[in-house]
Protein backbone atom coordinates (compact mmCIF):
# COMPACT_ATOMS: atom_id res chain seq x y z
CA UNK A 1 0.00 0.00 0.00
CA UNK A 2 1.28 3.42 -0.94
CA UNK A 3 0.80 6.74 0.77
CA UNK A 4 0.76 10.06 -0.99
CA UNK A 5 1.11 13.39 0.76
CA UNK A 6 -0.40 16.51 -0.78
CA UNK A 7 0.77 19.76 0.75
CA UNK A 8 -0.98 22.95 -0.34
CA UNK A 9 1.55 25.26 -1.96
CA UNK A 10 -0.25 28.53 -1.21
CA UNK A 11 -3.52 29.41 0.43
CA UNK A 12 -6.40 29.41 -2.01
CA UNK A 13 -9.34 31.76 -1.92
CA UNK A 14 -11.26 30.58 -4.95
CA UNK A 15 -13.16 27.30 -4.77
CA UNK A 16 -11.23 24.26 -5.92
CA UNK A 17 -13.18 21.34 -7.36
CA UNK A 18 -11.05 18.41 -6.26
CA UNK A 19 -12.94 15.20 -6.87
CA UNK A 20 -9.71 13.88 -8.39
CA UNK A 21 -8.24 13.65 -4.91
CA UNK A 22 -9.46 10.21 -4.10
CA UNK A 23 -7.64 6.96 -3.29
CA UNK A 24 -9.43 5.23 -6.15
CA UNK A 25 -8.17 7.84 -8.63
CA UNK A 26 -4.62 7.65 -7.27
CA UNK A 27 -4.46 3.87 -7.45
CA UNK A 28 -1.79 2.65 -9.83
CA UNK A 29 -0.58 6.13 -10.73
CA UNK A 30 2.98 7.35 -10.43
CA UNK A 31 3.77 10.49 -8.48
CA UNK A 32 3.97 12.44 -11.72
CA UNK A 33 0.65 11.07 -12.92
CA UNK A 34 -0.97 12.07 -9.62
CA UNK A 35 0.43 15.56 -10.02
CA UNK A 36 -1.13 15.70 -13.48
CA UNK A 37 -4.66 14.89 -12.35
CA UNK A 38 -7.12 17.69 -13.18
CA UNK A 39 -8.64 20.14 -10.76
CA UNK A 40 -10.78 23.18 -11.30
CA UNK A 41 -9.53 26.33 -9.57
CA UNK A 42 -12.38 28.75 -9.81
CA UNK A 43 -13.25 28.38 -13.48
CA UNK A 44 -9.66 27.66 -14.49
CA UNK A 45 -8.49 24.08 -15.18
CA UNK A 46 -5.32 23.29 -13.24
CA UNK A 47 -3.58 20.13 -12.05
CA UNK A 48 -3.00 18.66 -8.62
CA UNK A 49 0.66 19.55 -9.00
CA UNK A 50 -0.20 23.20 -9.62
CA UNK A 51 -1.77 23.58 -6.21
CA UNK A 52 -0.11 20.88 -4.15
CA UNK A 53 3.36 19.56 -3.50
CA UNK A 54 3.04 15.85 -4.18
CA UNK A 55 5.20 13.45 -2.21
CA UNK A 56 5.15 9.68 -2.04
CA UNK A 57 5.97 7.73 1.09
CA UNK A 58 5.95 4.27 2.51
CA UNK A 59 2.65 3.83 4.30
CA UNK A 60 4.47 2.56 7.36
CA UNK A 61 5.70 6.12 7.89
CA UNK A 62 2.17 7.46 8.23
CA UNK A 63 0.79 6.93 11.68
CA UNK A 64 -2.33 9.04 11.58
CA UNK A 65 -5.87 8.06 10.74
CA UNK A 66 -5.49 4.36 11.30
CA UNK A 67 -8.76 2.51 11.06
CA UNK A 68 -9.77 0.98 14.34
CA UNK A 69 -10.38 -2.72 14.23
CA UNK A 70 -13.96 -2.34 15.32
CA UNK A 71 -14.68 -0.02 12.43
CA UNK A 72 -12.90 -2.04 9.81
CA UNK A 73 -16.04 -3.76 8.54
CA UNK A 74 -17.45 -0.38 7.58
CA UNK A 75 -14.34 0.78 5.85
CA UNK A 76 -14.35 -2.00 3.33
CA UNK A 77 -11.08 -2.29 1.49
CA UNK A 78 -9.37 0.59 3.27
CA UNK A 79 -6.39 -1.45 4.32
CA UNK A 80 -5.79 -2.55 0.75
CA UNK A 81 -6.19 0.83 -0.89
CA UNK A 82 -4.24 4.01 -1.22
CA UNK A 83 -3.64 6.45 1.57
CA UNK A 84 -3.67 10.17 0.98
CA UNK A 85 -2.43 12.70 3.51
CA UNK A 86 -3.53 16.28 2.94
CA UNK A 87 -2.02 19.25 4.73
CA UNK A 88 -2.94 22.93 4.72
CA UNK A 89 -6.04 25.07 4.93
CA UNK A 90 -8.37 23.30 2.52
CA UNK A 91 -11.48 25.29 3.44
CA UNK A 92 -11.99 26.17 -0.22
CA UNK A 93 -11.13 22.74 -1.58
CA UNK A 94 -14.29 20.86 -2.36
CA UNK A 95 -15.31 17.30 -3.21
CA UNK A 96 -12.24 15.59 -1.78
CA UNK A 97 -12.89 11.85 -1.68
CA UNK A 98 -16.13 12.20 -3.58
CA UNK A 99 -17.32 8.78 -4.65
CA UNK A 100 -14.36 6.98 -3.12
CA UNK A 101 -14.79 3.25 -2.57
CA UNK A 102 -11.65 2.28 -0.72
CA UNK A 103 -8.48 3.58 0.85
CA UNK A 104 -7.93 6.31 3.38
CA UNK A 105 -7.71 10.06 3.39
CA UNK A 106 -6.26 11.96 6.33
CA UNK A 107 -6.67 15.72 6.37
CA UNK A 108 -4.66 17.92 8.71
CA UNK A 109 -6.63 21.15 8.63
CA UNK A 110 -10.06 22.40 7.69
CA UNK A 111 -11.69 21.12 4.53
CA UNK A 112 -14.32 22.40 2.14
CA UNK A 113 -17.73 21.27 1.02
CA UNK A 114 -18.86 17.86 -0.22
CA UNK A 115 -16.08 15.93 1.50
CA UNK A 116 -16.72 12.22 0.93
CA UNK A 117 -19.99 12.86 -0.81
CA UNK A 118 -21.33 9.70 -2.49
CA UNK A 119 -18.49 7.64 -1.06
CA UNK A 120 -19.14 3.91 -0.77
CA UNK A 121 -16.15 2.71 1.21
CA UNK A 122 -12.86 3.63 2.81
CA UNK A 123 -12.15 6.08 5.57
CA UNK A 124 -11.70 9.83 5.84
CA UNK A 125 -10.27 11.42 8.96
CA UNK A 126 -10.32 15.20 9.37
CA UNK A 127 -8.17 16.84 12.01
CA UNK A 128 -10.10 20.06 11.70
CA UNK A 129 -13.52 21.24 10.56
CA UNK A 130 -15.50 20.17 7.50
CA UNK A 131 -17.90 22.35 5.55
CA UNK A 132 -21.38 21.70 4.21
CA UNK A 133 -22.69 18.57 2.53
CA UNK A 134 -20.04 16.33 4.03
CA UNK A 135 -20.93 12.70 3.30
CA UNK A 136 -23.98 13.66 1.28
CA UNK A 137 -25.45 10.55 -0.34
CA UNK A 138 -22.68 8.37 1.07
CA UNK A 139 -23.46 4.66 1.03
CA UNK A 140 -20.50 3.17 2.89
CA UNK A 141 -17.25 3.84 4.68
CA UNK A 142 -16.48 6.08 7.62
CA UNK A 143 -15.89 9.81 7.96
CA UNK A 144 -14.39 10.96 11.25
CA UNK A 145 -14.15 14.66 11.98
CA UNK A 146 -12.24 15.90 15.01
CA UNK A 147 -13.79 19.34 14.76
CA UNK A 148 -17.16 20.68 13.62
CA UNK A 149 -19.09 20.00 10.46
CA UNK A 150 -21.24 22.40 8.48
CA UNK A 151 -24.84 22.10 7.39
CA UNK A 152 -26.38 19.10 5.61
CA UNK A 153 -23.89 16.45 6.65
CA UNK A 154 -25.09 13.09 5.33
CA UNK A 155 -27.99 14.82 3.65
CA UNK A 156 -29.61 14.63 0.22
CA UNK A 157 -28.91 17.16 -2.47
CA UNK A 158 -31.91 19.31 -3.39
CA UNK A 159 -34.33 17.38 -5.54
CA UNK A 160 -32.99 13.99 -4.48
CA UNK A 161 -35.21 11.62 -2.54
CA UNK A 162 -32.61 9.91 -0.40
CA UNK A 163 -29.58 11.18 1.48
CA UNK A 164 -27.04 9.03 3.22
CA UNK A 165 -27.65 5.34 2.46
CA UNK A 166 -24.99 3.66 4.56
CA UNK A 167 -21.70 4.06 6.34
CA UNK A 168 -20.91 6.17 9.37
CA UNK A 169 -20.24 9.81 10.13
CA UNK A 170 -18.59 10.44 13.49
CA UNK A 171 -18.22 14.06 14.55
CA UNK A 172 -16.34 15.06 17.68
CA UNK A 173 -17.49 18.66 17.51
CA UNK A 174 -20.87 20.04 16.54
CA UNK A 175 -22.91 19.77 13.36
CA UNK A 176 -24.83 22.41 11.49
CA UNK A 177 -28.46 22.44 10.48
CA UNK A 178 -30.21 19.66 8.59
CA UNK A 179 -27.73 16.95 9.47
CA UNK A 180 -29.02 13.63 8.12
CA UNK A 181 -31.70 15.19 5.94
CA UNK A 182 -33.57 12.43 4.08
CA UNK A 183 -31.14 9.91 5.49
CA UNK A 184 -32.08 6.39 4.41
CA UNK A 185 -29.61 4.20 6.27
CA UNK A 186 -26.38 4.45 8.24
CA UNK A 187 -25.14 6.16 11.36
CA UNK A 188 -24.39 9.75 12.26
CA UNK A 189 -23.01 10.40 15.74
CA UNK A 190 -22.34 13.95 16.86
CA UNK A 191 -20.59 14.47 20.15
CA UNK A 192 -21.44 18.16 20.28
CA UNK A 193 -24.62 19.99 19.37
CA UNK A 194 -26.65 19.79 16.18
CA UNK A 195 -28.44 22.63 14.47
CA UNK A 196 -32.08 22.92 13.65
CA UNK A 197 -33.95 20.43 11.49
CA UNK A 198 -31.61 17.56 12.24
CA UNK A 199 -32.94 14.34 10.71
CA UNK A 200 -35.50 16.28 8.76
CA UNK A 201 -37.48 14.00 6.43
CA UNK A 202 -35.42 11.08 7.64
CA UNK A 203 -36.41 7.77 6.04
CA UNK A 204 -34.39 5.41 8.24
CA UNK A 205 -31.01 5.16 9.93
CA UNK A 206 -29.72 6.42 13.25
CA UNK A 207 -28.64 9.85 14.45
CA UNK A 208 -27.02 10.10 17.88
CA UNK A 209 -26.57 13.51 19.47
CA UNK A 210 -24.51 13.77 22.63
CA UNK A 211 -24.87 17.54 22.99
CA UNK A 212 -27.93 19.68 22.43
CA UNK A 213 -30.51 18.59 19.90
CA UNK A 214 -31.49 21.65 17.93
CA UNK A 215 -35.06 22.78 17.32
CA UNK A 216 -37.47 21.09 14.93
CA UNK A 217 -35.58 17.79 14.95
CA UNK A 218 -37.09 15.01 12.88
CA UNK A 219 -39.60 17.17 11.06
CA UNK A 220 -41.26 15.05 8.41
CA UNK A 221 -39.39 11.88 9.34
CA UNK A 222 -40.97 8.60 8.26
CA UNK A 223 -38.82 6.05 10.04
CA UNK A 224 -35.45 6.04 11.71
CA UNK A 225 -34.12 6.94 15.11
CA UNK A 226 -32.85 10.16 16.63
CA UNK A 227 -31.23 9.60 20.01
CA UNK A 228 -30.85 12.66 22.22
CA UNK A 229 -28.30 11.86 24.90
CA UNK A 230 -27.86 15.45 26.01
CA UNK A 231 -30.35 18.27 26.16
CA UNK A 232 -33.03 19.50 23.79
CA UNK A 233 -33.34 23.09 22.67
CA UNK A 234 -36.94 24.01 23.31
CA UNK A 235 -39.67 21.43 22.90
CA UNK A 236 -39.95 18.70 20.34
CA UNK A 237 -42.29 19.41 17.51
CA UNK A 238 -45.93 18.72 18.36
CA UNK A 239 -46.03 16.14 15.58
CA UNK A 240 -44.08 13.83 17.87
CA UNK A 241 -46.13 12.04 20.51
CA UNK A 242 -44.84 10.58 23.74
CA UNK A 243 -45.21 6.78 23.76
CA UNK A 244 -43.46 5.40 26.82
CA UNK A 245 -40.32 5.39 28.96
CA UNK A 246 -38.29 2.24 28.57
CA UNK A 247 -34.92 0.69 27.89
CA UNK A 248 -34.79 -0.18 24.18
CA UNK A 249 -32.83 -3.41 23.90
CA UNK A 250 -31.18 -2.37 20.68
CA UNK A 251 -29.89 0.83 22.18
CA UNK A 252 -27.74 -0.99 24.74
CA UNK A 253 -26.13 -2.90 21.90
CA UNK A 254 -25.73 0.19 19.76
CA UNK A 255 -24.32 2.37 22.53
CA UNK A 256 -21.80 -0.27 23.58
CA UNK A 257 -20.76 -0.50 19.96
CA UNK A 258 -20.28 3.27 19.80
CA UNK A 259 -18.30 3.21 23.01
CA UNK A 260 -15.99 0.74 21.33
CA UNK A 261 -15.34 3.44 18.73
CA UNK A 262 -14.30 5.88 21.41
CA UNK A 263 -17.51 7.89 21.61
CA UNK A 264 -18.32 9.30 25.06
CA UNK A 265 -20.98 6.76 25.95
CA UNK A 266 -21.33 6.40 29.70
CA UNK A 267 -22.67 3.51 31.73
CA UNK A 268 -25.61 5.75 32.60
CA UNK A 269 -26.44 5.97 28.90
CA UNK A 270 -26.23 2.20 28.46
CA UNK A 271 -28.29 1.48 31.55
CA UNK A 272 -30.57 4.42 30.99
CA UNK A 273 -34.27 4.85 30.53
CA UNK A 274 -35.35 6.71 27.41
CA UNK A 275 -38.54 8.58 26.64
CA UNK A 276 -39.83 7.48 23.29
CA UNK A 277 -41.56 10.00 21.06
CA UNK A 278 -43.03 8.70 17.81
CA UNK A 279 -43.62 10.74 14.71
CA UNK A 280 -43.77 12.65 12.52
CA UNK A 281 -47.48 11.89 12.60
CA UNK A 282 -48.07 14.06 9.55
CA UNK A 283 -46.14 11.48 7.52
CA UNK A 284 -45.76 7.74 8.10
CA UNK A 285 -45.23 8.32 11.81
CA UNK A 286 -42.89 5.38 12.38
CA UNK A 287 -39.89 7.47 13.29
CA UNK A 288 -38.76 7.93 16.84
CA UNK A 289 -36.88 10.36 19.01
CA UNK A 290 -35.41 8.67 22.05
CA UNK A 291 -34.60 11.13 24.78
CA UNK A 292 -32.28 10.02 27.54
CA UNK A 293 -34.12 10.35 30.83
CA UNK A 294 -32.25 8.76 33.68
CA UNK A 295 -30.29 5.71 34.76
CA UNK A 296 -32.51 2.78 35.60
Amino acid at each position, binding site marked *: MRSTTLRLRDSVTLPVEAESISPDRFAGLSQEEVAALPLLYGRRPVTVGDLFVVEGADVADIQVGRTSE*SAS*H*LVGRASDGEEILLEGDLSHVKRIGQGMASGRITIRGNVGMHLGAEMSGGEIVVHGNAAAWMGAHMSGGVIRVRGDVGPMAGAAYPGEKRGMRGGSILVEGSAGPRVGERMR*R*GLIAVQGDVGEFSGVRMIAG*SLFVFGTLGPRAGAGMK*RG*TIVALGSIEGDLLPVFHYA*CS*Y*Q*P*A*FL*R*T*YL*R*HLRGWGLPVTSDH*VEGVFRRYVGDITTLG*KGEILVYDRRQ
Partner: protein
Amino acid sequence: MHINGVEIEDTFAEAFKMRAARLLITAINPQWAMTAAQVSTGFATSVIACGCEAGIEGVVPSDVTPDGRPGVSILIFTMGPKGMKDQLMRRVGQCIMTCPTTACFNGLEGEEWLKIGGTLRYFGDGFQASKLVGGRRFWRIPVMQGEFLVEEQFGMKKAVGGGNFLILGESVEATLGAAERAVEAMHAVEGVVMPFPGGIVRSGSKTSSQYKFLHASTNTAYCPSLRRQTDSALPEGVNSVLEIVIDGLDEDAVREATRVGVDAACRPGIVRISAGNYGGTLGQYQIHLQELWK
Protein backbone atom coordinates in the same frame (compact mmCIF):
# COMPACT_ATOMS: atom_id res chain seq x y z
CA MET B 1 -6.73 -50.14 29.29
CA HIS B 2 -7.77 -48.89 32.71
CA ILE B 3 -8.22 -45.46 34.28
CA ASN B 4 -8.41 -45.38 38.07
CA GLY B 5 -9.06 -49.12 37.96
CA VAL B 6 -11.97 -48.76 35.53
CA GLU B 7 -11.79 -50.74 32.33
CA ILE B 8 -11.96 -48.70 29.11
CA GLU B 9 -13.39 -51.06 26.54
CA ASP B 10 -11.67 -51.30 23.18
CA THR B 11 -14.60 -49.95 21.21
CA PHE B 12 -15.77 -46.76 19.60
CA ALA B 13 -18.62 -44.31 19.56
CA GLU B 14 -20.25 -43.83 16.21
CA ALA B 15 -21.09 -40.21 15.49
CA PHE B 16 -22.89 -38.50 12.65
CA LYS B 17 -22.76 -35.40 10.53
CA MET B 18 -25.23 -32.82 11.75
CA ARG B 19 -25.83 -29.10 11.39
CA ALA B 20 -25.40 -26.74 14.31
CA ALA B 21 -26.46 -23.25 15.30
CA ARG B 22 -25.40 -21.27 18.34
CA LEU B 23 -27.73 -18.77 19.99
CA LEU B 24 -26.72 -16.27 22.62
CA ILE B 25 -29.62 -15.33 24.85
CA THR B 26 -29.36 -12.30 27.10
CA ALA B 27 -31.79 -10.98 29.67
CA ILE B 28 -32.16 -8.56 32.52
CA ASN B 29 -30.50 -10.99 34.92
CA PRO B 30 -28.87 -14.43 34.80
CA GLN B 31 -32.03 -16.15 36.00
CA TRP B 32 -34.18 -15.00 33.10
CA ALA B 33 -31.44 -15.71 30.59
CA MET B 34 -31.18 -19.23 31.96
CA THR B 35 -34.95 -19.65 31.96
CA ALA B 36 -35.10 -18.79 28.28
CA ALA B 37 -32.17 -21.10 27.56
CA GLN B 38 -33.75 -23.99 29.43
CA VAL B 39 -37.11 -23.57 27.76
CA SER B 40 -35.68 -23.17 24.28
CA THR B 41 -33.58 -26.32 24.68
CA GLY B 42 -36.44 -28.28 26.16
CA PHE B 43 -37.87 -31.32 24.37
CA ALA B 44 -34.70 -31.53 22.29
CA THR B 45 -33.08 -34.74 23.43
CA SER B 46 -33.18 -36.84 20.30
CA VAL B 47 -33.39 -35.55 16.77
CA ILE B 48 -35.56 -38.49 15.75
CA ALA B 49 -38.53 -37.57 17.89
CA CYS B 50 -37.87 -33.96 18.81
CA GLY B 51 -36.73 -32.52 15.49
CA CYS B 52 -33.47 -31.37 16.96
CA GLU B 53 -31.02 -31.91 19.76
CA ALA B 54 -30.14 -28.93 21.89
CA GLY B 55 -28.49 -27.99 25.10
CA ILE B 56 -26.93 -25.23 27.12
CA GLU B 57 -23.32 -24.63 26.20
CA GLY B 58 -22.56 -22.28 29.03
CA VAL B 59 -23.11 -19.01 30.83
CA VAL B 60 -21.75 -15.92 29.09
CA PRO B 61 -20.69 -13.03 31.33
CA SER B 62 -22.25 -9.65 30.71
CA ASP B 63 -18.99 -7.97 29.74
CA VAL B 64 -18.75 -9.99 26.55
CA THR B 65 -22.37 -10.05 25.41
CA PRO B 66 -23.41 -7.53 22.73
CA ASP B 67 -25.84 -5.72 25.00
CA GLY B 68 -23.85 -5.99 28.19
CA ARG B 69 -26.41 -8.15 29.95
CA PRO B 70 -25.97 -11.63 31.39
CA GLY B 71 -26.15 -14.30 28.74
CA VAL B 72 -26.43 -18.00 28.12
CA SER B 73 -25.17 -19.77 25.02
CA ILE B 74 -27.13 -22.66 23.59
CA LEU B 75 -26.40 -25.04 20.73
CA ILE B 76 -29.03 -26.56 18.47
CA PHE B 77 -28.34 -29.52 16.19
CA THR B 78 -30.37 -30.95 13.33
CA MET B 79 -29.65 -33.74 10.89
CA GLY B 80 -29.70 -31.44 7.91
CA PRO B 81 -30.01 -27.81 6.93
CA LYS B 82 -33.71 -28.00 6.11
CA GLY B 83 -34.87 -28.67 9.61
CA MET B 84 -32.74 -26.02 11.26
CA LYS B 85 -34.71 -23.00 10.20
CA ASP B 86 -37.94 -24.60 11.30
CA GLN B 87 -36.50 -25.43 14.69
CA LEU B 88 -34.97 -22.00 15.19
CA MET B 89 -38.17 -20.28 14.21
CA ARG B 90 -40.16 -22.35 16.67
CA ARG B 91 -37.72 -22.09 19.53
CA VAL B 92 -36.77 -18.43 19.13
CA GLY B 93 -40.36 -17.43 18.46
CA GLN B 94 -42.09 -19.49 21.11
CA CYS B 95 -39.47 -19.85 23.82
CA ILE B 96 -37.17 -16.83 23.66
CA MET B 97 -39.36 -14.03 22.35
CA THR B 98 -42.04 -14.95 24.87
CA CYS B 99 -39.62 -14.91 27.79
CA PRO B 100 -39.48 -11.60 29.67
CA THR B 101 -36.60 -9.20 28.91
CA THR B 102 -34.69 -11.47 26.54
CA ALA B 103 -32.74 -10.65 23.40
CA CYS B 104 -31.35 -13.24 21.00
CA PHE B 105 -28.03 -12.96 19.15
CA ASN B 106 -26.29 -15.20 16.68
CA GLY B 107 -23.24 -16.89 18.14
CA LEU B 108 -21.74 -18.63 15.15
CA GLU B 109 -19.86 -17.63 12.02
CA GLY B 110 -21.79 -20.01 9.86
CA GLU B 111 -21.11 -21.75 6.60
CA GLU B 112 -24.73 -21.01 5.75
CA TRP B 113 -27.08 -18.34 7.04
CA LEU B 114 -30.68 -18.68 8.13
CA LYS B 115 -33.06 -15.74 8.13
CA ILE B 116 -34.62 -16.00 11.58
CA GLY B 117 -35.10 -12.48 12.91
CA GLY B 118 -35.78 -11.43 9.36
CA THR B 119 -38.76 -13.76 9.34
CA LEU B 120 -39.90 -13.38 12.93
CA ARG B 121 -40.09 -9.64 12.41
CA TYR B 122 -43.53 -9.92 10.87
CA PHE B 123 -44.86 -10.56 14.36
CA GLY B 124 -44.38 -6.82 14.74
CA ASP B 125 -47.36 -6.28 12.44
CA GLY B 126 -45.71 -3.51 10.49
CA PHE B 127 -44.21 -1.75 13.49
CA GLN B 128 -40.99 -3.77 13.48
CA ALA B 129 -37.81 -1.86 12.78
CA SER B 130 -34.32 -2.92 11.87
CA LYS B 131 -30.96 -1.58 12.99
CA LEU B 132 -27.58 -2.28 11.48
CA VAL B 133 -25.00 -2.31 14.26
CA GLY B 134 -21.41 -3.22 13.58
CA GLY B 135 -22.32 -4.87 10.29
CA ARG B 136 -24.98 -7.04 11.95
CA ARG B 137 -28.64 -6.44 11.28
CA PHE B 138 -31.06 -6.67 14.16
CA TRP B 139 -34.82 -6.56 14.28
CA ARG B 140 -36.71 -4.72 16.96
CA ILE B 141 -40.07 -6.37 17.42
CA PRO B 142 -42.47 -4.44 19.64
CA VAL B 143 -43.95 -6.63 22.38
CA MET B 144 -46.14 -5.91 25.37
CA GLN B 145 -43.16 -5.61 27.68
CA GLY B 146 -41.19 -3.35 25.38
CA GLU B 147 -39.11 -4.71 22.53
CA PHE B 148 -37.70 -8.06 21.54
CA LEU B 149 -34.33 -7.73 19.83
CA VAL B 150 -33.32 -10.56 17.53
CA GLU B 151 -30.57 -10.85 15.00
CA GLU B 152 -31.67 -11.09 11.40
CA GLN B 153 -29.53 -14.07 10.45
CA PHE B 154 -28.14 -17.00 12.34
CA GLY B 155 -25.13 -18.97 11.21
CA MET B 156 -25.27 -22.70 10.64
CA LYS B 157 -22.30 -24.99 10.23
CA LYS B 158 -21.54 -28.66 9.79
CA ALA B 159 -21.17 -30.37 13.12
CA VAL B 160 -20.88 -33.75 14.79
CA GLY B 161 -23.67 -35.39 16.75
CA GLY B 162 -24.17 -38.64 18.55
CA GLY B 163 -20.81 -38.95 20.28
CA ASN B 164 -21.35 -41.03 23.36
CA PHE B 165 -20.01 -43.23 26.07
CA LEU B 166 -21.62 -45.68 28.47
CA ILE B 167 -20.92 -45.86 32.17
CA LEU B 168 -21.34 -49.37 33.54
CA GLY B 169 -21.59 -49.30 37.32
CA GLU B 170 -22.27 -51.50 40.29
CA SER B 171 -25.27 -49.53 41.50
CA VAL B 172 -27.66 -46.79 40.49
CA GLU B 173 -26.06 -44.42 42.98
CA ALA B 174 -22.49 -45.06 41.86
CA THR B 175 -23.35 -44.86 38.17
CA LEU B 176 -25.42 -41.72 38.52
CA GLY B 177 -22.75 -40.05 40.63
CA ALA B 178 -20.12 -40.85 38.02
CA ALA B 179 -22.34 -39.57 35.22
CA GLU B 180 -23.04 -36.35 37.09
CA ARG B 181 -19.33 -35.80 37.61
CA ALA B 182 -18.70 -36.47 33.95
CA VAL B 183 -21.32 -34.00 32.75
CA GLU B 184 -20.07 -31.32 35.09
CA ALA B 185 -16.54 -31.75 33.80
CA MET B 186 -17.69 -31.80 30.18
CA HIS B 187 -19.43 -28.45 30.55
CA ALA B 188 -15.98 -26.89 30.63
CA VAL B 189 -15.40 -27.96 27.03
CA GLU B 190 -16.43 -25.26 24.57
CA GLY B 191 -18.61 -26.17 21.62
CA VAL B 192 -20.41 -29.21 23.00
CA VAL B 193 -23.73 -29.96 24.61
CA MET B 194 -25.16 -33.05 26.21
CA PRO B 195 -28.77 -32.86 25.07
CA PHE B 196 -30.44 -35.39 27.36
CA PRO B 197 -31.92 -34.63 30.80
CA GLY B 198 -29.11 -33.36 32.95
CA GLY B 199 -26.84 -34.53 30.15
CA ILE B 200 -27.57 -38.18 30.94
CA VAL B 201 -29.55 -40.92 29.18
CA ARG B 202 -30.90 -43.89 31.07
CA SER B 203 -32.82 -45.43 28.17
CA GLY B 204 -30.34 -45.98 25.39
CA SER B 205 -31.74 -47.62 22.30
CA LYS B 206 -30.82 -50.05 19.59
CA THR B 207 -31.90 -49.62 15.98
CA SER B 208 -34.28 -52.57 15.80
CA SER B 209 -37.43 -53.88 17.40
CA GLN B 210 -39.51 -57.01 17.35
CA TYR B 211 -42.42 -54.76 16.49
CA LYS B 212 -42.79 -53.76 12.86
CA PHE B 213 -44.09 -50.32 13.73
CA LEU B 214 -40.98 -49.42 15.71
CA HIS B 215 -37.55 -48.55 14.33
CA ALA B 216 -35.82 -48.41 17.68
CA SER B 217 -36.25 -50.09 21.02
CA THR B 218 -34.55 -50.43 24.37
CA ASN B 219 -30.91 -51.40 24.27
CA THR B 220 -31.46 -54.90 25.61
CA ALA B 221 -27.78 -55.81 25.62
CA TYR B 222 -27.17 -53.12 28.23
CA CYS B 223 -30.27 -53.68 30.38
CA PRO B 224 -29.08 -55.34 33.60
CA SER B 225 -32.49 -56.82 34.29
CA LEU B 226 -32.39 -58.72 30.98
CA ARG B 227 -28.97 -60.25 31.53
CA ARG B 228 -30.20 -63.83 31.42
CA GLN B 229 -32.95 -63.27 28.84
CA THR B 230 -30.98 -61.70 25.99
CA ASP B 231 -27.44 -61.47 24.69
CA SER B 232 -25.94 -59.22 27.30
CA ALA B 233 -22.94 -56.92 26.91
CA LEU B 234 -22.66 -56.43 30.63
CA PRO B 235 -19.98 -58.01 32.79
CA GLU B 236 -20.95 -59.52 36.10
CA GLY B 237 -21.33 -56.98 38.85
CA VAL B 238 -22.87 -54.32 36.64
CA ASN B 239 -26.33 -53.35 37.83
CA SER B 240 -26.84 -49.96 36.24
CA VAL B 241 -25.84 -48.32 32.96
CA LEU B 242 -26.05 -44.69 31.96
CA GLU B 243 -25.12 -43.07 28.67
CA ILE B 244 -23.87 -39.60 27.92
CA VAL B 245 -24.57 -38.35 24.41
CA ILE B 246 -22.43 -35.52 23.04
CA ASP B 247 -23.13 -33.14 20.17
CA GLY B 248 -20.34 -30.79 19.19
CA LEU B 249 -19.44 -28.09 16.73
CA ASP B 250 -16.62 -30.28 15.41
CA GLU B 251 -15.09 -33.69 15.91
CA ASP B 252 -12.27 -32.41 18.08
CA ALA B 253 -14.71 -30.87 20.53
CA VAL B 254 -16.63 -34.15 20.78
CA ARG B 255 -13.41 -36.11 21.31
CA GLU B 256 -12.21 -33.73 23.99
CA ALA B 257 -15.54 -33.81 25.79
CA THR B 258 -15.53 -37.60 25.67
CA ARG B 259 -12.03 -37.76 27.12
CA VAL B 260 -12.85 -35.28 29.88
CA GLY B 261 -16.10 -37.05 30.68
CA VAL B 262 -14.62 -40.53 30.83
CA ASP B 263 -11.79 -39.28 33.01
CA ALA B 264 -14.28 -37.82 35.46
CA ALA B 265 -16.51 -40.90 35.39
CA CYS B 266 -13.79 -43.37 36.28
CA ARG B 267 -14.29 -43.59 40.00
CA PRO B 268 -15.07 -46.28 42.59
CA GLY B 269 -18.21 -48.24 41.83
CA ILE B 270 -17.71 -48.07 38.08
CA VAL B 271 -16.78 -51.30 36.34
CA ARG B 272 -16.38 -50.39 32.71
CA ILE B 273 -16.67 -47.52 30.20
CA SER B 274 -18.07 -48.53 26.85
CA ALA B 275 -19.56 -46.75 23.84
CA GLY B 276 -22.49 -47.18 21.48
CA ASN B 277 -22.03 -47.92 17.81
CA TYR B 278 -23.68 -49.62 14.88
CA GLY B 279 -20.67 -51.60 13.80
CA GLY B 280 -19.32 -48.59 11.97
CA THR B 281 -21.95 -48.88 9.25
CA LEU B 282 -24.04 -45.77 9.87
CA GLY B 283 -21.97 -42.93 11.27
CA GLN B 284 -19.38 -40.85 9.49
CA TYR B 285 -17.17 -40.57 12.57
CA GLN B 286 -15.69 -43.22 14.85
CA ILE B 287 -14.38 -42.07 18.20
CA HIS B 288 -12.29 -44.89 19.61
CA LEU B 289 -12.22 -44.63 23.36
CA GLN B 290 -8.72 -45.91 23.94
CA GLU B 291 -7.26 -43.52 21.38
CA LEU B 292 -8.43 -40.47 23.29
CA TRP B 293 -5.45 -40.61 25.62
CA LYS B 294 -2.81 -41.10 22.92
